[in-house]
């Protein structure tokens, strides 16, 4: 136990109430952990945090810390009030990539906990908002020791700074009936083919891959990632009419009308007189609502694949941007399919690295140069699925119209030939 602990009257208040208290946890490290180093560092941390609560200000500053051979992966934190709280004056976080989909055995969690206890503060979060395991609180020297130890048994640092960041994927095929792709295979294939760009930040800004297995998008990929991969299907959804009838029996006809039939955004559902359901699959936009309400009766089809949206991000600098559809549908079954997805990502990252301004996300670059310049830069043809509507403004020079129209007809002819071949 630390001999003289800093008083923490404000933080003590957060030990009351029914939700588990992080303060109680940090205090246990301070008061009960056998290692005096951990007692001391958590004492300093609590002292500084109390100081923040009293003055309503933060007191950490960044710096440059990395492990040998890498440029990123550590969030350096040096205290600005290190004279007052010297025990935690170096308190860096290691970002470690979780297994795709965030699965662990208790054995592995214990092993990671044991390593962390040897070198760090004993505080860890599963996971940070970028998706990393956050090992919070190590000295500059110990970041290297901890990394060396866990790197030997299969763990690698994630991204920090202007680089490809740690990716995220949903629970996916491991435990979800809505899965339309192998989320974890895609996640690993993409991010692990960019390890150099993860570990050595040299891009205009951050670049994130996120994979959701269906349009419910549990990973917030469209809103939060530069490269969103969303599972979908293009044949008919599967309907189990018996189960549909069971829902009607259980919930009542009106409930099904009010909560399923009329909630369809494209009016693609009808309730038939014999209590079966009809689906206009051609106009279904795969929004997932009816499947979510009736997971026993309705299922994704068999012709599965992914939709790719590029350029999502949050506020800085020009305001929030959703990703934009760049590939409406892509099969991801063979190794060639995965390779072509990777090539597309390489093209996008290369084009952005060359044309993006400093601290400009890919989506901001697209906003600045226009989608057409971006598509031409990465060699992807226009598609009406990329827009909510065609342009409203006539202020555009269109003297290439005939040529562009011919390109469209040519593509349609090729698609027809490919389909009949």
């Amino acid at each position, binding site marked *: 136990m630390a001999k003289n602990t800093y008083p923490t009257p404000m933080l003590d208040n957060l030990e009351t109430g029914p939700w588990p208290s992080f303060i109680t946890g940090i205090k246990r490290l301070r008061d009960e952990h056998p290692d005096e180093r951990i007692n001391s560092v958590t004492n300093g941390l609590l002292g500084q945090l109390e100081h923040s609560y009293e003055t309503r200000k*933060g007191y950490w500053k960044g710096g440059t810390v990395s492990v*040998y051979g890498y440029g990123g992966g550590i969030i350096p934190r040096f205290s600005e009030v290190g004279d007052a709280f010297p025990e935690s004056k170096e308190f860096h976080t290691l970002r470690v990539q979780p297994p795709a989909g965030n699965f662990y055995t208790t054995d*592995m969690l214990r092993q990671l906990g044991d390593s962390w206890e040897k070198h760090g503060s004993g505080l*860890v979060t599963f996971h940070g*908002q970028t998706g990393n395991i956050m090992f919070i609180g190590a000295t500059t020297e110990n970041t290297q020791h901890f990394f060396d130890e866990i790197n030997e048994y299969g763990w690698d640092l994630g991204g920090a700074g202007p680089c490809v960041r740690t990716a995220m994927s949903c*629970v996916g095929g491991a435990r979800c009936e809505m899965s339309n792709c192998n989320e974890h295979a895609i996640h690993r294939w993409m991010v692990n083919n960019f390890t150099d760009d993860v570990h050595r930040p040299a891009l205009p800004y951050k670049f994130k891959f996120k994979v959701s297995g269906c349009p419910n998008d549990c990973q917030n990929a469209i809103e939060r990632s530069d490269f969103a991969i969303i599972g979908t299907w293009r044949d008919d959804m599967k309907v189990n009419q018996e189960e549909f009838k069971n829902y009607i029996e259980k919930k009542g006809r009106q409930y099904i009308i009010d909560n399923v039939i009329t909630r369809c955004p494209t009016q693609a559902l009808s309730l038939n007189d014999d209590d079966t359901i009809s689906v206009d699959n051609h106009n279904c936009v795969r929004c997932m609502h009816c499947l979510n309400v009736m997971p026993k009766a309705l299922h994704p089809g068999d012709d599965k694949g992914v939709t790719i949206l590029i350029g999502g991000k949050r506020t800085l600098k020009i305001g929030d941007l959703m990703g934009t559809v760049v590939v409406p549908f892509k099969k991801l079954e063979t190794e060639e399919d995965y390779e072509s997805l990777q090539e597309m990502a390489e093209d996008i990252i290369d084009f952005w690295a060359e044309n993006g301004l*400093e601290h400009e996300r890919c989506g901001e670059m697209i906003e600045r140069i226009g989608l057409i310049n971006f598509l031409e830069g990465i060699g992807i043809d226009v598609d009406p699925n990329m827009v909510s509507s065609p342009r409203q403004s006539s202020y555009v020079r269109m003297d290439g119209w005939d040529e562009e129209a011919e390109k469209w007809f040519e593509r349609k002819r090729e698609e027809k030939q490919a389909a009949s071949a």
Partner: protein
Amino acid sequence: MAQEMRSPIESGCPDAFQYMHPVMRKNFGQWAYHEDPQPGVLLHVSNNGDKIWTVRAGTQRILDVFTLRKLCDIGDEHGEGYIHFTIRSNIEYQVADEAKVQPLIKALEDAGFVVGGTRNSVAMLSHTQGWLHCDIPGTDASGVVKSMMDELIGEFKEWNMPNRVHMTTSCCQINCGGQGDIAINVQHTKPPKINHDLVSNVCERPSVVARCPVAAIRPALVNGKPSLEVDEKKCICCGACFPPCPPMQINDAEHSKLAIWVGGNHSNARGKPTFQKLVASGIPNNPPRWPEATAVVKKILKAYKENAKDWERINDWIERIGWPRFFEVTGLPFTKYHIDNWRGARASLNASTHIRF
């Protein structure tokens, strides 16, 4: 002689298959449907009839190794040794034996964890580091979340909401917490105070100038030293200059406030994904319990719970009833600050006679 450094093994993201429950491995991609036996519990059934139960629990998120080991002990004693974490940092235990579900719930609750967070509940707030570890935070994250979850715990454990409610907090306007049905974010209200003695040593001035979204920063000589100045009439107090230039102190004990945003929804279900919209601001950043922010959140949740239809997320509900009614039923003031003036803002104005009376 210096010790030779160890070269890293660039293994990247590990394969999760080795850590998955055997029933999940066996049925990967073969799940048929799920049921919700009770709050905090999911039952997934595969095409061949295999079943797996999931028990979900909320924790303090910032875990000390004692708590981590406690969670592992519970997983070994009452679960089957397999764990999954959700995107909102809840812990999930998977078991193939139904008989283990109730003892697992009891063990979690006896240890102080909170079973729930599934289906139409108020889910765990997603948040980041705050004063505990961030270099630019205007507030704390874990403390705000602990305070709010203390009051919303009943909604986490039950299915009382029209649909799920995802809440987030963020300690600056970068908004690492992300989009949410309800988001509680720092909103600065005064321009940065500049420590001119430090700027030339600490900041790369051209990149700070470039960082400003409204071009309000320019290089200047102050007291004979190269520094930066801010056109305070143009400044929108966003704090974007602070990360690259800490002497541009944006955080202020009194003037850094909290704002509340609603209607962010990542899902494509029903409508397209939506960004959150401002509903309340000027809320004091008041540690250790932030009661004013929680009061506004509870007001919004109460109105949503009483007025929304089943399956409507907050954005769906407001779209149906209209914004004027939202302000009416929540009692929140509508001000000039609610009307957007950023690029593309006219698209958010009502260009129709669609008005509810």
